[in-house]
């Protein structure tokens, strides 16, 4: 007669990594809907290409590493990386751009560092940075949003979009600079002038046509994740607050030297995507609460600095990667005070 020996606890929340990842995927839906509504089906094609590439690369590498393929594919982590990257890449960009970005993300940034749980840098952001540095022209051409299209123009249909993606035909007619890009290159104009001259701002409700809704979509997704307790509020909120504080500090009453309004910064570019889907990546972020707050705030500040005074129009990827470097360091110095201890233990002392 033998009874099974199982250690406590004998109860489990039935939470699982694949559940977490699935929830994250679901939370991206509002944002994706907004993207598709304002910019056409380009993002959907990006997602399809990115997901297929990611699954193929993941399976191949797992095979090379002699790991159970089905077990790891089921955790959906590769899909999350692919979806986040697919969202970040411009709609209608060439297919190979997506493949290169996703492949780099999965192979270089994830598996070469040890795979799931061991990568120090956010894979999606590594993929993004690789392609933005390598192919800046393709990466800075963004589709014109619905509402400010030229007279007689319409959003690309699914078939013509495919043509653009695979034939490498230019979509010049349908594309332009992103609001952040425009803002950056309008030197000498006051905010008032920019807003009245550029239709993308003039037609907008709060920040920029299309973009404001995309950001709000990701904000809704993020709120859902918070509700589901997939992550804590610390990192995203501190990032948004830091970005807003920076924007307020350098608002300069909307003069020609102004860095833009806080609302503009919060609802432009990849702000909300970054705050709720990138900064919250547990693997590459800080783990303690204070660490998360510092991590988020640092990201927010660096985003603003690069957007306003740097060379790249958007900066979420760079900011996150820079803060990824600091994450272990932050964890060292922000260990919480344990129950029954007067001070938090300084771990670094012991490690020397």
């Amino acid at each position, binding site marked *: 007669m033998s009874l099974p020996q199982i250690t406590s606890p004998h*109860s489990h*929340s039935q939470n699982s990594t694949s559940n977490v990842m699935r929830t994250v995927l679901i939370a991206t839906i509002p944002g994706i809907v907004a993207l598709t509504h304002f910019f056409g089906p380009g993002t959907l094609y990006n997602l399809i290409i990115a997901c297929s590439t990611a699954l193929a690369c993941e399976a191949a590498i797992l095979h090379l590493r002699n790991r159970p393929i089905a077990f790891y594919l089921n955790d959906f982590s590769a899909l999350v990386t692919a979806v986040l990257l697919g969202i970040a890449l411009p709609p209608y960009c060439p297919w190979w751009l997506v493949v290169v970005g996703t492949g780099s993300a999965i192979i270089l940034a994830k598996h070469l560092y040890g795979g799931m749980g061991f990568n120090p840098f956010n894979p999606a952001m590594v993929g993004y940075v690789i392609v933005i540095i390598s192919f800046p022209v393709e990466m800075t051409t963004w589709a014109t949003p619905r509402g400010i299209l030229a007279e007689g123009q319409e959003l690309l249909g699914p078939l013509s979009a495919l043509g653009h993606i695979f034939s490498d035909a230019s979509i010049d007619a349908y594309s332009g600079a992103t609001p952040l890009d425009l803002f950056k290159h309008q030197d000498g104009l006051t905010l008032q002038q920019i807003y009245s001259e550029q239709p993308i701002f003039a037609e907008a409700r709060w920040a920029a046509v299309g973009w404001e809704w995309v950001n709000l979509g990701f904000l809704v997704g993020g709120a859902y994740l918070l509700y589901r307790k997939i992550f804590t509020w610390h990192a995203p909120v501190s990032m948004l607050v830091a970005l807003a504080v920076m924007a307020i500090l350098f608002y300069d009453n909307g003069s020609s030297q102004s860095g833009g309004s806080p609302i503009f910064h919060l609802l432009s570019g990849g702000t909300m995507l970054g705050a709720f889907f990138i900064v919250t990546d547990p693997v590459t*972020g800080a783990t303690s609460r204070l660490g998360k707050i510092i991590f988020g705030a640092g990201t927010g500040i660096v985003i603003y600095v690069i957007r306003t005074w740097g060379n790249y129009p958007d900066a979420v990827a760079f900011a996150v990667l820079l803060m990824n470097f600091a994450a272990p360091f932050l964890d060292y110095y922000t260990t919480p005070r344990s129950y029954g201890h007067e001070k938090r233990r300084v771990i670094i002392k*012991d490690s020397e």
Partner: protein
Amino acid sequence: MRQIWPTPGGVHPPENKTQSLGLPIAQCPLPPQVILPVSQHLGAPADPIVSVGDKVLKGQLVAEAPQQVSANIHASTSGTVVAIEERPLPHPSGLSGLSIVIEADGKDEWCELQPIEDYSRSGPTELIQKIQAAGVVGMGGAGFPAAVKLASRTPITTLIINGTECEPYITSDDILMRTYAEELVEAIRLLDYLLNGPQEVLIAIESNKPEAIEKMTAAIATLNDPRYEVVTLPAKYPNGGEKQLVQMLTGKEVPSGKIPAALGVVCQNVATALAAYRAVTKGEPLISRITTITGNAFSEQRNLEVLVGTPISFILQQQGYSKDTASRLVMGGPMMGFTLLSEECPVIKTTNCLLAPTQEEAPANGPEQACIRCGMCAEACPASLLPQQLYWYSRAQDEDKLKAYNLFDCIECGACSYVCPSQIPLVQYYRAAKGEIRQHEIEKKHSEKARERFEFHKERIEAEKAARAKAREEAAAKAKLRAEEKKKAEEAKLAQANSQATDSDTTPSEAEAKKNLVADIIAGAKKAQDDPARLARNITSTEDRLKKLQAKVEELEQSAPDQAEAIRARIKETEVKLKSLQDKQATLGNSEEKQVDATLQAESNSQSDITLQAEKAVEKMEMSANQKVQRELDTLKRKLAKITEQLASTDEADSDTRSALELSEKMLKEKLRKAEAAANSPASSKADAKRTLSGDEQSAVGDAITRSMERAMQKQSVDVEELRQKIQTLEARIEATQERIAATDDATTKDALRKGLVSMQTKLEKTQALYDMAEQSSE
């Protein structure tokens, strides 16, 4: 309303408490047998005081606590002790432990109890002793002896009665509060009395037990004591942990490594309080408890009043346990309970729940996935630890880091494992790491002790070696001293013979060195002053010095006149000294004769001495050989007796052991016979004894004899040689003295010299005789 401080972390697992609350408490039937492990508590195991075959009554002490942190064990029913042996223990290790097994006689007859009806007439110390004697331990799970907690030396300001019962499934405390609210309040008043009336008495109950809260509130209302309060706590696991409870109710944290008493707080579980009360007012020891029987693998889920020692298998049978549907059998709750490895384990004092969940309730753990550092564990940790870092360092076995991350503040509540999306059994890693660290610390202590022992041993060996070496040196020095003394006597004679021919007396450098040594040794002796040899040497050296000084004076006369003056004064001194020495030497000639006689005597004796020593050595060897044989004989006899005894006690069936024993007995007998034969023979004669000596011993004796002979021979030959030299020098000195007599004008000096000459001639004759004798004996 009382302020409730928030606690970090915690989880909300499904409560699953209603299943077992549908029915009131029932009495579990009397089992045919009770098994009472002697260790059911924290601290030292109790010592059994009954033997197999003893009749015991219900409530009778069967195992006694050896020290304060331990607990007495009492028979939970009347019957006969049928075994005191190792039985499977209800313990996470699944190990066995000493248990007293009592066959129930079915009468369930109590022993005589000694209740204290009015405890207010007794002092707290006496009552606490009573509680201790009753074997009351913490019944919430840890099993810490209750009396130790109550006998706190620090003044207690807050008494917390723990009725939180935060762990899912368990309802034993809940139903106890519902059923025995009034008695429980009386029990709390007893504890209040024992702790000298703390400022507040808080009964903590989680909000998910409304009925218990209601009953307890009503029960304390009759007291009309503002210190008493029922505190409703938010339901969150593990809020019922002692540390969490203290934090929520006082806002203070129990310092790491300390107990709540450090903050003036004592926590007691409701069941413990009731047991202590019954021990005092009814005299009943802790022999039964309420246990929740739950999990869908039981056909009937409820709370049972169970005798301590009731076999689990008996309860399973009573409650319709279905082995096929159960995924595991757990003692305790789903968060901190442990799986039982044997159904033969008994219920013990800390068994608050028996959980048999089905596969649906507690599915097998999924495969462990990679940690994604999601941090959910850190959010769940009630001790504000970083479970994720602890996990990494546990895997890396980095003990320093684990300690730095406060691994030992982990209360193993399992909240982190519960929330982990990667299904990593975190608590298991921490338990293993803790065990390893403890093990290493024990090993470290052991090895340090061993090192100390070794060093001490080494030091002792060195000291012994040094002592032996010193003893050897001393012995050698003594021997040398004796030899030198002998030699000195001869040298002295020689020197005396030369005394009147100082100027011409030249001695070889070796002889000079020997003389120095001899002179040193004699220095202590009284006659040293009168020693002719030394005198002679003194004269020589003084003369030398004189010459040197004179040479220096000549040198200095030219360079430094005042220094020369000083040296001249010293020359004068030296000359005076020389004169007195020479006088002394002259008067000494006479006394030498006697000394020569003494030497002669000693030398003739020495030969017989050596022979005697050799004989003694042989005898000694023989003696020790005899004793050795005797000793060997004794040991053999003893061994034989032992073997025979063993043989007698060995089971007939165990043929292997038996034949081995028989063989060794035979061999021993043979050996003994030989030894006896050997022991008898040496008594007859010396020659026989020699035969019994071993080869080594024989050769040792032979060597000793040879060495003695050689020494004797050497001594003899040296003597002859020395004597010959002595004669020659004496002759030379006589001649020189005669010359000096002829040359001296001074009458007194001449007289002295003549006297010396006479004595020298006598000495020469005697030495001549000695020489003849020695020569004869050596040839």
